């Protein structure tokens, strides 16, 4: 069985700040990480690998050359192969162009039974790439997946839809997007890190390695234009309580009761 996991390298938004003048992210000095739900996707693939024989897990990413380190991290977690799609011509892609380019790379990979994507990236928050990729490859899809079971060529998932949990069976090949509830990603082991650098490779594919329609890649293939970005202002200031925890808790409780936010 062959599993492809799509991975995006993102700035660690816990550490990111926004330039109040331009409204853009200040990326300087901000560490790059694997998008958290993509880590869940890698973990999901690795668990399938552990429970079944002959599973090969390939991680696929599109990004600048420095995104290689995110793929190395996926290899350190236990993925078998890694492919980085990197080319200046890919820059400026929106979700449509991205999913198109990913679909071409997956066609080149040829052998795949299951594609697992993280639900959404913490930088763009669109949750579009997974579903668009399934459409591009004409595959059945299930999104917001929280449980996965594989039996022969059928994948059965539990997919959350607001407060409803749906059980969906799909014949593979199929695509799923997972949320952070699906699992807790493993810690990398020391020997896993060693193997990621010593025994495994990150293969780079440029536009020349893929059959691409030039009008559908990079900025040319991206109909989405960002007109304006801004930082929402919070007009009401919060109330700061700086006391010992137990006293703070008492003050917060008083406040909530006073505002009728809580009743006994």
């Amino acid at each position, binding site marked *: 069985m062959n599993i492809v996991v799509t991975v995006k390298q993102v700035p660690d938004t816990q550490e990111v700040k926004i330039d109040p003048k331009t409204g853009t992210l200040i990326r300087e000095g901000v560490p790059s990480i694997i998008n958290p739900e993509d880590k869940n996707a890698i973990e999901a693939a690795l668990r399938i690998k552990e429970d079944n024989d002959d599973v090969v897990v390939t991680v696929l990413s599109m990004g600048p050359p420095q995104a290689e380190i995110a793929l190395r991290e996926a290899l350190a977690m236990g993925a078998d192969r890694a492919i980085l799609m990197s080319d200046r011509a890919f820059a400026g892609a929106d979700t449509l162009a991205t999913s198109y380019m990913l679909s071409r790379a997956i066609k080149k990979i040829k052998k795949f039974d299951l594609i697992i994507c993280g639900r959404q990236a913490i930088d763009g928050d669109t949750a579009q790439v997974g579903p668009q990729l399934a459409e591009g490859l004409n595959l059945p899809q299930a999104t917001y997946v929280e449980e996965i079971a594989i039996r022969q060529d059928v994948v059965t998932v539990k997919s959350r839809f607001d407060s409803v949990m749906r059980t969906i069976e799909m014949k593979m090949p199929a695509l799923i997007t997972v949320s952070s509830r699906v699992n807790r990603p493993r*810690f*990398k*082991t020391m*020997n896993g*890190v*060693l193997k990621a650098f010593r025994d495994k490779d990150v293969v780079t594919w440029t536009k020349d390695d893929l059959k691409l329609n030039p009008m559908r890649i990079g900025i040319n293939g991206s109909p989405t234009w960002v007109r304006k970005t801004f930082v929402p202002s919070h007009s009401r200031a919060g109330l700061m309580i700086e006391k010992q925890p137990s006293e703070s808790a008492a003050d917060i409780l008083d406040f909530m009761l006073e505002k009728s936010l809580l009743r006994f």
Partner: protein
Amino acid sequence: MTLCYQMDDKFEMIRLAVREFAESEIKPVAGELEENEEFSVSLTQQMGDIGLFGMTVPEAYGGQGLDYISYIIAVEEIARIDGSQAATLAAGNSLGIGPIDAFGLEAQKRKYLPDLCRGRTLIGFGLTEPNAGSDAGATSTTATRDGDSWIINGRKTLTTNADTPMTKGSIVQALTGTRPNGKVEYTCFIVENDTPGFTRNTLKRKLMWRGSNTAELFLNNCRVPDNAVLGNPGDGFKQMLATLDGGRLSIGAMGLGCAQGAYEAALRYSKERVQFGKPISRQQAISFKLADMALKIELARNLLYKACWLAENKRPYGKESAMAKLYCSEIAREVADEAVQVHGGYGLFKDYDVERFYRDQRLLQIGEGTSEVLRIVISRAIGC
């Protein structure tokens, strides 16, 4: 060979992997374990699960097959969060696994290393005695030959990891005779815990590292087979010196990690704490302290990594190892002390990690060569 300060991505990934583990698994429980003087089997096993034991041991023996710098970075990152778990780890690797990997016979490596490297067992290293500390030559534990076995008698103390539920045994150094040239001869033995006459007692009420295990060992007519001799009879002193040279690097890493943790806590707090209308980090009396801390840490890290590089490249590193341990442990004291000062009165309470760092650093100027002994080592190395 060119001078290069760019570290491989591999080292950075090792650092982040250990940091992620330490922050998520150790940090939430470190204070409580420490306060209750509780050794955590589960945390130790978890450290084993991510491969923190046997980092430099070949993969064929169940080790991780990594290099010395990776190991030192791992100890540094655990110590950045908690001295107790770092102590378990550093002693486990440098004093338990290290001598067996370096000097053990093939059968001994096959027998002990796989479980040690998985973090399922621990082995102590009994060197210090009630009357033989810095003066290791005053060792009075003896082993005498009796047929094809040895009888060991004596007492060891301050042995890390020697009395935990996971401990398989301890390596014990004993006097085994006098050489023709009149010099006494030492031999190291691997004494398993179920050996009749071998008992242990955990030493409680420590100032620091209270979540790690420290024990005294009693050897009363302990009969061990010939194959309990670590490597060859008579090699004990040489083995001990080599083990301590390596062990010093890991104590250095503990000092560096402790300083880093204390410094980060102080920096964070100084940005939150407002006095005289602005954060204390913006007041020169405090910002200069933080600048000095950053400077000392930078120097310590450079010195320690250089010593590791020498060790890794099989060059003489005894002097640099002593310098690195001495300097890292002394700046750990200075940085932890100033970190408490930056915290003011709050730094005296267990609610803040710096209280623990302040106590944890104190061992580092004593264990595995006191600062004074290290100055002897260095002064001899420079030809005094």
